[in-house]
């Protein structure tokens, strides 16, 4: 009985790390660019489908793990240059509309390329087994996913806190004009941050593909969950994205064993509770 809960807690951690990677990208883009990316879920979808394509073509999951975020990031970089850049100075309404348009285009392109039926992706050959602790067994791939996402999260934290790039991103979210005056090409910084944020969503898409496959309409669902995570954790906060993501993942996973139908319902219920008690999120500033 206890094993069932341990199983669900580990599942929740894995799910939570996926949500963390997705929403931390959303958060850093918002933090620096003050831009809300409604196409974020669509780029997650791109990651999942790239994983399918690369694994189907080469049989190599590791190639997908590299290619997915890189291609998603490159796609985002181009999108930023061509479209997103034009609306930074406009009110949020227009930013939302243009990214909603981008999300629709990505979703429909995905259906044109990969068809309307979802694709499943096998887990990598060397992680197909289970790991045993006494009489408790847990799939290797899921453990790898938790560990890898944690590693990426730590690397991201180092990047943001310990490098010049990170310092510029953080300074830019406080005062972009000042950073520009100090000689940084702020537009290049914006492009790089947008690409980085989206690459994280792409990576989350790749990592979740062996578990959930790739589906053309997953973008909306992922966007909804990323928003809930951010509302719970507080927008623009790295720690908020981590705690929010883990909380949402754990609630969803534990509910699956208690009341499967209401699992998704509960995470939105949790969000409503947080808004009532702490309108600015657990880590948000007023």
């Amino acid at each position, binding site marked *: 009985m206890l094993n069932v809960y341990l199983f669900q807690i580990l599942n929740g951690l894995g799910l939570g790390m996926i949500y963390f990677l997705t929403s931390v990208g959303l958060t850093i883009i918002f933090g620096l660019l003050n831009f809300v990316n409604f196409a974020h879920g669509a780029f997650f979808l791109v990651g999942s489908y790239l994983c399918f394509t690369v694994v189907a073509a080469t049989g190599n999951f590791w190639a997908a793990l590299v290619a997915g975020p890189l291609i998603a990031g490159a796609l985002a970089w181009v999108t930023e240059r061509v479209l997103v850049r034009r609306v930074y100075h406009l009110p949020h309404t227009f930013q939302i509309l243009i990214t909603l*348009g981008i999300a629709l*285009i990505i979703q429909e392109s995905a259906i044109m390329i990969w068809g309307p039926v979802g694709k499943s992706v096998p887990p990598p050959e060397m992680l197909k087994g289970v790991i045993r602790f006494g009489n408790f067994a847990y799939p290797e791939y899921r453990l790898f996913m938790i560990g890898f996402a944690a590693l990426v999260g730590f690397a991201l934290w180092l990047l943001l806190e310990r490098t010049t790039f990170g310092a510029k991103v953080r300074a830019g979210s406080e005062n972009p004009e000042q950073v520009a005056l100090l000689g940084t090409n702020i537009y290049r910084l914006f492009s790089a941050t947008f690409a980085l944020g989206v690459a994280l969503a792409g990576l989350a898409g790749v990592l979740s593909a062996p578990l959930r496959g790739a589906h053309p309409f997953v973008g909306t669902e992922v966007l909804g969950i990323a928003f809930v995570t951010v509302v719970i954790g507080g927008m623009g906060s790295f720690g908020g994205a981590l705690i929010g993501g883990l909380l949402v993942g754990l609630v969803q996973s534990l509910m699956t064993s208690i009341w499967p139908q209401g699992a998704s319902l509960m995470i939105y219920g949790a969000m409503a509770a947080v808004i*009532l008690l702490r*309108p600015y999120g657990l880590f948000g500033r007023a």
Partner: protein
Amino acid sequence: MQTNSSPSSATPSSSLFGGITLAALAALVALPLILPSATLATEIVIFAMAALACNLLLGYTGLLSFGQAIFFGIGAYLSSLVMIHLGAGLIIALVVAALAGAAAAALVGALAIRRTGIYFVMLTLAFTQLAYFIAYTASDWTGGDNGLLDVPRPPLALGGLVIADLEPAVSYYIFVATLFLLLFVAARRIIGSPFGSTLVAIRENPDRAAAVGYDTRQFKILAFTLSGAITGIAGALYAMLLHFAPLSNIELPMSENILIMTIIGGTGSLLGSLLGSTAIVLLGDWLSAIWPRWLMLLGIALIGVVIFMRGGLWGGIEGVVAKLRERRGGPEA
């Protein structure tokens, strides 16, 4: 969210039953004559109603709501339930839809406006997801994935006296169009009233409106309630049109559709909402048969509107008219 960007003018002129209302009337008369079926025309007018309600929030109050599907879906479900289980008539069913939409909107509005700007938008979106999962989970009532089947379309009756059978498509169209026109005139009256001016003031500068002494919170919730009531009615009419209340009524894409119609038509113009719903419903009807991926065009259109034509179709028409006037050297109206 607050923006001070809506392109069209703030309040309509005092000519309440003047040009704009006549134009709406003309469009409503023309629609079923031009289109191949009255059912298609009815669908356009129902979505025009939903877009009009969305416009009250976005165009006049500056609130971008992804929650419209909640009110649309609740209107559809509750009116259907009271008709199916309690044998309610048309008017009762519509009143129930309006009240349910208003109540849901007041609740969502009150919770969501605890935050402003982008957080507000995200909250309305998340509440739509919440409502979707509630509807999905409560499948005993909503039919879950299958939707609520066998929704009746009762005759228009007053005190047991049947005035019109609405089963024929044309009769139903006339009923829906009349209701739309009434709501259109009412919405124009509301916008022209001091209440409407306050909403516009909140849109333009929420801080200043608050400083002047308006309880902006209360005004926003009221605008939400009003919008929810109208959207609820639209949802009920849609269920009666289809004889069916699908789960997709209460899904996020429905919110997006209503928003897109509002914006492509032109925010801040009620006639624009009719224009927007006509454009999108027709586009969908014609294109979906030829090219199932027509939603991609919608995405491109959205990007085009943001980059080239922020006033939407209505703004575009206004621009063309202004240019023509200029060329003729006539006076600006």
